[in-house]
């Protein structure tokens, strides 16, 4: 926006400048048209042409000065602003100015000195003296000849007055003409008519002599000299004197000779004797040849020219100097302007290239330098434009490829995420290895199952991170795969992690790409612990149910039969009655024991379904604990309830049974004097209740711990091995989890986790 405004301002300024220049030109033309020197001396057409040329020159000079100065100022400002390219432009302009200024100024000064000296030489004193002398010679010649002609005319006038008779006068005139080397001698009447004459025969047209006004002057008594041109280019210098006569003096010859013309007695006697009157005019003419006249005119013209030039000496010199100065200025400014042009031709493409490079670097590949030149700069610009075009094309291809790649990546990412989601959500643990045995993938189930942190093992070799026992198993598996040349193998195994043992089904699969190349392996772990546990539980329940069914049925007849035998045959057996009674009682007692055992099995087999109702777990525990406190006063029971535990749904009877069973075990473990602690903790964030039953009894060996919750496993002599199995079954039915740990420093602790959400 601001750029456009600046451009408009610039155009306005230029318009004003152009108008100003035009007005100036008009003014100058008007001024020149009114120069008096030009208005009439040369034709109008020439004047206009001359004015045009001068004005155009002037305009060009003004424009040149303006442009050069403007550019210099602009360059100065741009240099201050450190605009790119100004340094090179400055160097070039300075170089051109220097290259032009020094020789031009030298030439100018030389020319000034030369012109000044030349002009001075033209007008030196010697020349002027010579010309003046020559002119004076010519002037003296004319003056002398004029004087001579007057003298001759006077002489002739005097002699004529003394002779009488036409012939004598004629002879006198002829003689004097020859004597004085005159072209013509004549006597003119008062009317100006030639009375007698003697002329040089070689000069055919010497007539007339003095003009009439000169004759009149002579008749008034004056002596007159006159110069008239002659036909051949020469001149006749006339001299006239009055011819005096007396009225009283008589001279027959003279009076007779002149009587007809002069109309009176014109005496030829001496004028001094009596009153004299001018009776006629004696005119003599001296012929100056053309060659001499021409030479004298040359002398005259030379002197005139010299005087002309002398008058014009100063303006001439000034004029030459001004013209010389103008030419010098034109050369200097032209050179400067050329420097600017050259610098512009160099710097503008360079600036454009710099700008283009910047734009290309910033990613604008549409930048095109519109400078057309056939030199190396043009080649550079063309190469740059080609480069940007190629870059643009390549960028387009790259962008297309990138887009395709991005699409592919997105798809891959989507698939990867899907796979990760699948892997994360799949119940089976998955661990993959590459062909070097480096762990590449561990899913969440594997982390949870194997109690691992994926970040710790991904990127590590399995040989390094695996425990020696499992490493051996792994080697055997790999060996088996290699031996059987199968692509997969499955193996059920038990894994012990700390105090936890679980059964997994490990599926080892060989990974190959589409070309069959070996990529590594993937191991899928299916946790079978719970399944096996359930299967065992179910089997045990079935066994218990069958045992109960098969054993319980004959027990009652056995017991009844034993009681009948005792009643019927007690009195009949005399001496061995004691033995008999003891035996029958033993049968009856053992059957009763057996019945109890069978009932236990039967109860285990026929565990009722959980019916959770809102209950206070603290209260359930407390009510269960009361019985034990009463029965075992020697044992210290500590109950630590959690007051924040809310009421939640739980099967009261079954849960009570759980605590009774656990407390039974604890009481059995402490064997008299001991401490049993029950602690309840509630985690609101997890909504989980954790119960811990700790005793300081004899503890449980590690090898027994995995089997502890299995049916018919007991470390007690009188135990049925069903108590903890029932606990486990009830807790599992409540979606909880029960585990056994060693109590520190002594004893055992059972930990039950129960979710509130069930």
């Amino acid at each position: 926006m601001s750029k456009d405004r600046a451009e408009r301002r610039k155009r306005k300024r230029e318009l004003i400048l152009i108008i100003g220049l035009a007005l100036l030109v008009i003014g100058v033309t008007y001024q020149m048209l009114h120069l008096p020197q030009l208005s009439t001396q040369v034709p109008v057409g020439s004047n206009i042409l001359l004015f045009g040329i001068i004005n155009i020159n002037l305009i060009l000079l003004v424009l040149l000065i303006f442009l050069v100065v403007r550019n210099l100022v602009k360059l100065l400002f741009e240099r201050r602003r450190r605009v790119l390219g100004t340094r090179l432009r400055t160097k070039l302009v300075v170089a051109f100015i220097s290259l032009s200024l020094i020789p031009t100024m030298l030439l100018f000064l030389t020319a000034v000195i030369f012109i000044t000296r030349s002009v001075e030489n033209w007008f030196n004193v010697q020349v002027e003296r010579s010309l003046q002398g020559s002119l004076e010679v010519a002037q003296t010649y004319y003056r002398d000849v004029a004087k001579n002609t007057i003298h001759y005319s006077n002489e002739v006038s005097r002699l004529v007055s003394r002779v009488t008779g036409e012939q004598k006068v004629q002879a006198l005139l002829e003689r004097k003409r020859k004597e004085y080397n005159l072209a013509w001698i004549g006597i003119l009447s008062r009317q100006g008519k030639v009375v007698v004459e003697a002329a040089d025969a070689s000069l055919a047209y010497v007539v007339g002599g003095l003009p009439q006004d000169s004759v009149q002057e002579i008749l008034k008594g004056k002596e007159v000299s006159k110069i008239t041109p002659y036909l051949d280019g020469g001149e006749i210098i006339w001299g006239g004197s009055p011819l005096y006569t007396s009225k009283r003096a008589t001279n027959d010859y003279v009076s007779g000779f002149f009587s007809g013309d002069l109309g009176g007695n014109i005496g030829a006697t001496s004028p001094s004797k009596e009153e004299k009157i001018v009776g006629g005019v004696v005119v003599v003419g001296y012929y100056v040849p053309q060659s001499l006249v021409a030479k004298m005119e040359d002398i005259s013209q030379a002197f005139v020219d010299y005087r002309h030039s002398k008058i014009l000496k100063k303006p001439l010199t000034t004029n030459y100097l001004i013209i010389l100065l103008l030419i010098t200025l034109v050369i200097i400014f032209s050179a400067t302007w050329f420097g600017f042009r050259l610098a512009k031709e160099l710097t503008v493409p360079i600036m454009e290239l710099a700008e283009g490079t910047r734009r290309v670097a910033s990613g604008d590949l549409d930048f095109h330098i519109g400078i057309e030149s056939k030199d190396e700069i043009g080649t550079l610009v063309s190469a740059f434009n080609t480069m940007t075009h190629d870059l643009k094309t390549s960028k387009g291809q790259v962008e297309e490829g990138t887009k395709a790649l991005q699409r592919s990546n997105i798809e891959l990412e989507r698939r990867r995420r899907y796979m990760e989601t699948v892997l994360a959500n799949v119940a089976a643990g998955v661990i993959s290895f590459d062909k070097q045995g480096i762990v590449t993938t561990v899913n969440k189930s594997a982390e949870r199952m194997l109690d691992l942190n994926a970040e710790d093992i991904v990127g590590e070799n399995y040989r390094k991170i695996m425990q020696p026992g499992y490493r051996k198993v792994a080697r055997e598996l790999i060996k088996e795969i290699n031996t059987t040349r199968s692509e997969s193998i499955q193996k059920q195994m038990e894994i012990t992690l700390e105090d936890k043992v679980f059964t997994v089904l490990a599926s080892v699969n060989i990974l190959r790409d589409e070309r069959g190349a070996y990529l590594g392996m993937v191991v899928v772990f299916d946790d079978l612990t719970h399944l096996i546990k359930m299967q065992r539980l179910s089997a045990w329940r079935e066994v218990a149910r069958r045992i109960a069914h098969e054993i319980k049925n004959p027990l009652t007849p056995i017991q009844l039969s034993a009681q009948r035998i005792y009643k019927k045959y007690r009195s009949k057996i005399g001496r061995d009655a004691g033995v008999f009674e003891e035996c029958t009682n033993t049968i009856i007692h053992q059957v009763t024991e057996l019945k109890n055992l069978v009932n236990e099995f039967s109860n285990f087999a026929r565990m009722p379904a959980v019916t959770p109702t809102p209950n206070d777990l603290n209260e359930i525990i407390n009510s269960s604990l009361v019985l034990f406190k009463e029965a075992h006063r020697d044992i210290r029971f500590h109950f630590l309830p959690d007051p924040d535990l809310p009421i939640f749904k739980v099967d009261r009877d079954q849960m009570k049974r759980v605590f009774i069973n656990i407390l039974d075990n604890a009481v059995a473990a402490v064997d008299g004097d001991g401490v049993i602690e029950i602690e309840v903790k509630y985690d609101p964030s997890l909504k989980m209740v954790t119960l811990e039953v700790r005793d300081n009894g004899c503890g449980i060996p590690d090898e027994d711990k995995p089997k502890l919750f299995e049916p018919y496993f007991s470390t007690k002599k009188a135990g049925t091995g069903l108590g903890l199995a029932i606990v486990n079954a009830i807790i599992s039915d409540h979606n909880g989890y029960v585990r056994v740990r060693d109590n520190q420093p002594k004893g055992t602790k059972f930990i039950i986790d129960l979710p509130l959400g069930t």
Partner: protein
Amino acid sequence: MIAKRLVVGIVVLLCAVVFPLCPAQGEEAAIEGFRLERVGGDVSISFSITHCFSQKMEEAITAGFPTTFNFFVKFYKRRLIKDKKIAARRFRHTIVYDNLKDTFLIWLEETGREFEVQDLEEAKRYMQRVKELSVTKGEKLEKGTYELAIKAELDPVKLPLRLESILFFVSLWDFETDWYYHIERVEP
């Protein structure tokens, strides 16, 4: 700002170069001694120019420059809308010095006379004086107001090498009188 000052500077410089071309003048030349004689339709005038010869001009004349005075005479009848031109005359007085013979050749165009004089002052008198110039002859002047305008100027001096054609040449001498007006009323 600097560019503006620059332009102003250039214009001033140009004016300084161009306008000094106007010749420097001393005392202004003028028409004086006007006299009009009217006999019927014949109108003749006499006048002379004063302060028309400067020292430089005299030097130029004696140096051989042919010098010519141009005279312009216009005679109009004044009218309401446009004046009517009765007569217009233009003539010249020329003086050339012959240094060889030390004479001044005078040519008065209005009379056709060509003559020589020895003295410069006499030659100057001939040059600046117009005597009994016939403006109209034999015309019947109607009743009304007439205007006579007279002007004289120096014919441009012809210089060697056509220097006068060059812009930077400064004229050495020059004169030009203002128009001299004379109103003449013609009664029936």
